[in-house]
């Protein structure tokens, strides 16, 4: 299958200096995550046909593509929540054979689509569940600073929170983990526009010094948060590079994402 548009992807490191936009000068730092030939089958469907990509440290990379192209599947496969073949390395060490909880202990952290907070547990219990790292106690203070609402509602059942509050809880519990790579899946899905603004502001603050792989349908949100982009098409990496370059090329944006830039954030 051929890459249809733009720069050939072929495992190109997102951290290449050409990606610009604040990348360190000279030598590129070693990638946090390297993925080689990632295949995923679900039932009879072959969803990912061998993904190759790298994630550079301390940058937010958006994982983009049309609906159903396999973005969430990619995150689940990275976490080991879906069976996959191929090679996944975190900081140069293979995690392919590890179970989900071991991968997380090695430094992956996950904010799922639909948030998946434990609705029967209180906010405090949801956070306590995540308090299992030496750094968690210090980080809890930061999380409460970032989301004061969570401290105010600590005795409330998480299921009774609003969508935006649940998103903050889902993000907050992940931030208690000193993770090397945050995997965030559609943090603004199903939220009202005003709440989206709030969540984006919180995400900008929370992810300032972290490495993030972000799945986001809302191109506006992706633009606000990400410096780099990886575009999936037909189960492969079709394009990768700087977010700004992607957005500058309207033809590319339309063909790869099925949306025009203007339509990305506002119109339905």
């Amino acid at each position, binding site marked *: 299958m051929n890459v249809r548009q733009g720069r050939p992807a072929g495992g190109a490191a997102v951290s290449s200096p050409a990606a610009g936009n604040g990348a360190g000068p000279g030598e590129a730092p070693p990638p946090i995550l390297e993925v080689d030939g990632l295949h995923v089958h679900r039932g009879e469907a072959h969803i990912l046909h061998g993904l190759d990509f790298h994630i550079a440290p301390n940058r937010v990379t958006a994982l983009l593509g049309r609906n159903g192209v396999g973005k969430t599947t990619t995150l689940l496969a990275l*976490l080991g*929540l879906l069976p996959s073949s191929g090679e996944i390395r975190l900081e140069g060490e293979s995690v392919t054979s590890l*179970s*989900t*909880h071991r991968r*997380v*202990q090695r430094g992956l952290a*996950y904010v*799922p689509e639909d948030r*998946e907070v*434990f*609705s*029967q*547990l209180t906010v405090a*219990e949801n956070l*306590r*569940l*995540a308090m*299992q790292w030496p750094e968690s106690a210090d980080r809890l203070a930061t999380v409460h600073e970032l989301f004061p609402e969570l401290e105010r509602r600590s005795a409330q059942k998480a299921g009774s929170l609003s969508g935006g509050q649940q998103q903050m809880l889902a993000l907050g*519990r992940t931030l208690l*983990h000193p993770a090397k790579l945050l995997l965030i899946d559609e943090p603004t899905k199903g939220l009202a526009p005003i709440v989206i603004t709030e969540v984006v502001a919180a995400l900008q603050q929370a992810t300032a010094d972290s490495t993030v792989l972000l799945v986001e349908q809302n191109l506006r949100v992706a633009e606000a948060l990400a410096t780099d982009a990886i575009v999936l098409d037909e189960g492969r990496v079709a394009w990768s590079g700087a977010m700004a370059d992607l957005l500058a090329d309207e033809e590319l944006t339309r063909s790869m994402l099925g949306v025009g830039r203007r339509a990305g954030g506002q119109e339905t």
Partner: protein
Amino acid sequence: MTFQTFALLLVTGLGLSGVYFLIASGLSLIFGLMDVLNLAHGLFFTAGSYATWWVMSSLEVVGPLGLRFAIAVVAGGGLGLAMGYVVERVFVRRFYGDHVTQILITLGLSLAGVALVGGWFTYDPRTFPLPEAFGNVVMVAGARIPVTRLLTLGLSLVLLVALLAFLRRTRHGLVIRAGVENRSMVQAMGIDVQKSFTLVFAIGGMLAAIGGVLGAVFFAGVTPEFGLNILIFAFIVVVIGGLGSVEGTALASVLVGLTQQFVNYLAGAGIGDLTVVALLAGTLLIRPQGLLGEAVR
């Protein structure tokens, strides 16, 4: 119905509820956490009841029967704990995600287990001596209540409180409650949920075995098939209460135990059991997720 009869039926019904709760709570947690229908759960019950029979009738080193009974509770509970651990680690663990195979294996264990006990101890009911105090009646609000009924009720209440405290106050309990709701998210938080699987199986085995100890006293004897028979009512309790909910299981145990006891007395033996099945059908039609269960996730 005299007050004496009413009080006796009430306490007997609640004692039966206690036995149901002990076997059903583990079943419900096992199903809630790992989607496993453990047909071998009746075996834990049988193990507890035969441990009681053996300790009470053969452990002559220990003189006082009261002390022997205490030993029976501990030994039965310990045996159930060990069996739960072994069943999970050896038989169930390698088939997670394959529900039918898990059910089939626990079914085979259940049949072979009953036959094993029958082969060892024959299918004849076995009785055993009880501490003299167990034969007494006490006056409660003017009604004469047998001590065995109060014992069953009391001990199962203590275990209910202990189980709830474990689930609500400890980190293991927190992980189990979270896992019942969403297993893969617990893993995605870096927690080894398999440890909780083993733990829940062991705790479920222990509770069911203590249920067997109390059942042996409550029904004044033990038989090999008894665990399987009572397992069927435990299933009904679990479905009515809502899969995975300990509180729901407790509530449904009381409902089923009392219904069975009162209707059997008022309408004739067997009719109470039928009413309980009707309750199950009604629950499914009106509220398929059970009294305190969550809607299908």
